[in-house]
């Protein structure tokens, strides 16, 4: 029986319901927070806060629901590589747009 559970676990321990419930609550809290914050007048900080909360929620999903916290280095590297390439696409494209008649439309 122990051999079979070891097979099932691979290298990482099985994440239990307690963790999942905690993350669920955190995500719901974050959702409420971001909706509330969008009704406040915070100038340029509104989009920054919205993205920050979204990123925090996404991080929780990645680390705990998707088990990345308990995964191999390869998995973590893969996630980072994806995010990095996405950021290259966005930032270098935006660099062209920012330096080109920004806002004069």
């Amino acid at each position, binding site marked *: 029986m122990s*051999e*079979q559970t070891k*097979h*099932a*676990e*691979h290298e990482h321990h*099985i*994440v*239990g*319901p307690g963790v*999942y*419930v905690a*993350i*669920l609550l955190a*995500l*719901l809290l974050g*959702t409420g927070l*971001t*909706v509330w914050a*969008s*009704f*406040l*007048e*915070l100038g340029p900080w*509104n*989009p920054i806060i*919205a*993205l920050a*909360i*979204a990123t925090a*929620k*996404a991080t929780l*999903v*990645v680390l*705990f*629901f*998707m088990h990345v916290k308990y995964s191999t280095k*390869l*998995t973590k590297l*893969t*996630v980072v*590589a*994806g*995010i990095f*390439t*996405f950021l290259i*696409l*966005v930032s270098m*494209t*935006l660099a062209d*747009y920012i330096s080109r008649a*920004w*806002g004069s*439309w």
Partner: protein
Amino acid sequence: MPDNSAIVYDAQESASAANNANGANSAHLEHPSYLRHHFNSAEQQADTSNFAMWLFLLTEVMFFGGLFTAYLIYRNWYYPAFVAGSHQLNVIWGTLNTVVLIASSFTMAMGVWCAETRRRRGLILCLSLTFILGLCFLGIKTIEYHEKWEKHHVPGVHYSLQSFVDPDSDAAARAAGDKPLPLDMARHTEIYFSLYFAMTGMHALHMIIGIGILGFMIYRARAGAYTSGHVTFVENFGLYWHFVDIVWIYLFALLYLISRHQ
């Protein structure tokens, strides 16, 4: 000449044949029926397919990434149009959908736990809840899309600028306290809705595919396919489902919550 440390590929087959008399259990452990022949062990197979799913998710990140890039550029160029467009979306439906998806991620994660701990009925329950929540999401999306269609906010030949040049004629614009937009800025709202439909539409397509696979998994789970040690399919599908949830988390923040504070 032959290397002493060479391992014969067929060791597992011959071992299981030899052990058949002793105990099918140990043979099953060494060579489970789901082990594909080109893998050396079930662990290698599970590890490999997990990594493969992550790489597939990377392609999805880049695929949606193009849409997010377009969104970021146009939102900064045409901010007033994007604000007006965003006010046409119902923040209650959007928040509800976000809650629905987060809950479905929870039920999916619980489903993986059930598979890992061999709780067949728990797994079926969790998958079914995820399925239902997914359908709820699509249902709400249908209501929203229908409303957009009715108000002529779907890009194309029937697109109407009415709500933006004359906000008093539109309930949602009135509620948000929108001022009338100059004509050229009003035209740019069509880009907002193009991106809205492209991004949420692409997301919904991924949801539909996911729900289809969930249906298949529920059917297989009832036969005990995922609760006898072979959890890879459920695990990897879970990764896909969580990814689709993450996309929505960003879509919600970016599309629904632009400046609700007028």
